[in-house]
């Protein structure tokens, strides 16, 4: 019988390995660039001297494994190198944008999680009623909508027609929290709608799965009130799947943020990533991609560990 700690340690170890492999993949991906990064960036017309100087600057003359470790080492120290496009340190470009992205994702999570879990549970409890069906159709449509469709509909309504919120969400350090929230209202609403649909569907499925277990029938045959059956018998067993659903959707949120940031020209990491891909500013792509990947892996890891901890069978080993 595996104990809790060993499961969690194993999972943590796996997470670290995954991150290492991802970093290698990102690094090798750039190495595998057809031709040479220097030529690719400087173009065909560059003179051999400029190419050579550029190679020196990027340390392209060193063997790959040395460069990998020095790249990873400086990355871990917070030194991401400099941007090819404008020569500025990448850390400066990324820092405030990443916190903007987290701000947007954070507010969205605060709104969507309680709503989604609550509605998901209600839909499961009132299964096959009109309420459940309308929620089911609603969420099905919402997950079918591309994020930008939702975004533009919201802009057309709230920004163009009602002029309640700006269609461009520019935020800066001098703004108060309230101003910031006003600025991100529409991107936040867009993300909320998209994430909630997924979360509600998954919560509903998890609860229904628990409700069909024989121990729920037993609880009802013991003559317990419906309230007690749900709170005392169903809920502790549904907790583990629900936590899983929530954190997985947070991970989804981190990625979904990219498109929404572009729509609302929000100064976040996703916007930077997309711009850099278009400009082929590879060091910036590497750094921001790696940060996204770290966040994603970290959240997935949290989901696994939390759901292990909340599983009654695993919490009380034999």
């Amino acid at each position, binding site marked *: 019988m595996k104990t809790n700690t060993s499961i969690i340690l194993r999972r943590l170890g796996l997470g670290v390995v995954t991150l290492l492999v991802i970093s290698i993949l990102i690094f090798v991906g750039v190495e595998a660039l057809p031709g040479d990064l220097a030529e690719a960036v400087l173009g065909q017309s560059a003179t051999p001297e400029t190419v050579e100087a550029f190679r020196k600057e990027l340390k392209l003359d060193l063997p790959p494994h040395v460069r990998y470790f020095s790249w990873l080492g400086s990355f871990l120290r917070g030194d991401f190198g400099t941007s090819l496009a404008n020569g500025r340190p990448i850390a400066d470009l990324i820092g405030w944008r990443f916190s903007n992205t987290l701000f947007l994702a954070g507010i969205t999570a605060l709104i969507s999680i309680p709503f989604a879990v609550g509605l998901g549970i209600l839909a499961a409890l009132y299964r096959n009623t009109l309420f459940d069906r309308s929620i089911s159709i609603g969420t099905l449509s919402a997950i079918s909508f591309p994020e930008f469709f939702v975004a533009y509909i919201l802009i057309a309504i709230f920004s163009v027609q009602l002029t309640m919120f700006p269609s461009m969400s520019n935020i800066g350090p001098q703004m108060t929290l309230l101003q910031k929230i006003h600025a991100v209202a529409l991107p936040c609403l867009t993300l909320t709608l998209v994430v909630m649909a997924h979360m509600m569907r998954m919560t509903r499925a998890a609860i229904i799965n628990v409700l069909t277990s*024989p121990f729920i029938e*037993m609880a009802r*045959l*013991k*003559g317990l009130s419906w309230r007690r059956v749900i709170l005392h018998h169903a809920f502790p*067993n549904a907790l583990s799947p629900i936590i899983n659903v929530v954190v997985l959707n947070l991970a989804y949120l981190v990625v979904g943020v990219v498109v929404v940031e572009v729509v609302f020209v929000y100064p976040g990491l996703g916007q930077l990533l997309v711009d850099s891909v278009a400009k082929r500013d590879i060091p910036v792509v590497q750094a921001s991609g790696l940060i996204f990947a770290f966040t994603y892996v970290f959240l997935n890891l949290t989901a696994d560990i939390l759901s292990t901890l909340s599983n*009654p069978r695993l919490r009380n080993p*034999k």
Partner: protein
Amino acid sequence: MKHLLEINNLVIEARTGENWKPVIKGVDLVLDRGEVLGLIGESGAGKSTLGLAAMAYTRTGCRIASGSILYGDRDLTKLSKREQRKLRGAKIAYVAQSAAASFNPAHKLIHQFAELPVQHGVMSYAEAEKKAIDLYRRLHLPDPERIGYRYPHQVSGGQLQRAMVAMAMAGDPDIIIFDEPTTALDVTTQIEVLAAIKEVIQAQQTAAIYITHDLAVVAQLADRIMVLRYGDLVEEGEARELLENPQKEYTRDLISIRSLREDKDVLARKTDAILEIKGVSAAYLPGAPVVRDIDLTITPKKTVAVVGESGSGKTTLARVVTGLLPPYEGRIVFDGQELSADLKNRDLEVLRRMQMVYQMPDVALNPRQKIRRIIGRPLEFYFGMTGKAQEERILELLDMVELPARYISRYPSELSGGEKQRICIARALAANPDLIICDEVTSALDQLVAEGILELLQELQNELGVSYLFITHDLATVKAIADEIVVMLKGRIVEQGVKREILKPPHHEYTELLLSSVPEMDPDWLDNLLEERQESTLH
């Protein structure tokens, strides 16, 4: 006199697609205070549905269409949800078949026990706790003071089942519904649970409805027995009366004890053994052998039955013989030729001559293939038989397993459990095998159907001279079909020999335990057995 529970002309319907179809077709039932009523029937008889209806409860997709359920002077079907709920657990309690699934994994046993009286407002938590320990003791659970503070998955199956009986008694109910409470248990564990149930309900004078498919089990407990079939009452009577003098054909069939087969000459010489297993040991993980030092010989036209409880390694033995699990020690000799341990290195001829039939015909037949293809494939594969010749041979095989020719173009899902098992047998026969390994082939089937399958296997052996390696946990089956018996316990053979010898005392200690634990129709069997065992421990 007023009955404790009285069900009148009850009709329960189940939804199939758009329509409602009756599954209980107007059954009457009465239960008096302190009486134990046995509900017996095969699968699909509606006995669980009827049992649950006594609590005015129906599963999803079922509804009570008409009839009344009188408890005292109240009709349960007319009560409000709230009033129904107040009766459930407190006045009428339920013991489910699978305790492992029916206990909530998130809470300790004693909390689940105490919840019932505390929520119904008849006891404080402390009182309930004391009562639980008292009941655990009376149900002979080990360490009664502490076992309640464990979680369900930390307790064994037989103990869990007893803990559930205790939970049902928590509110001192008038009636307890037992729904196949021992079916999932090994025979030796079943005895313990049965004895505990009997003792407690007698002491408490609780009325009970005991639902089971096994007449011998119900004979030990019931005062009165109702036989159900397809949602109808077949026969009802006092337990002894009904067992001794059944009025209906169907009941007689259920009761008729399987006839012992006469022993044939088993003094075959070693040389014409069809299969020899010599000193075989095998393990799934290195260092943890599941079977050890197995020696076994099967001669042509004979049936060797390997018997043991779950975990005895009998199914593993079958996997070793077929080559699915190569042994780390020992040899397997088939018709004088030593077999490669691994399936991959065996030639087709060996594979053809050794066929297998499984416990669950549902998963042993590919649901997406028609019978024609299922039986036709081995004909094509081993003999290159196609077209008209194949078709004719398939029909011949269907005839051998006593199935109509029209089944050839059906899918397995259109057949009943027993018919599917016959198809499995036909598929094995298609290869013209010398040895068929039968792994619990009758365990998943209703009693009468199982008997039909055993008869068929016997006839086929007489006609075709095929040998069987018959793996089972059921001693009644062994008695019916075996020439030789091998008793296994924890991966080792504890006793083996000709059937007559094994079934005749003196037995090995474990064989004795196994044999004596098989319930008999005699209503006094359990009492006598417990008395005997008591005495032997005293001496």
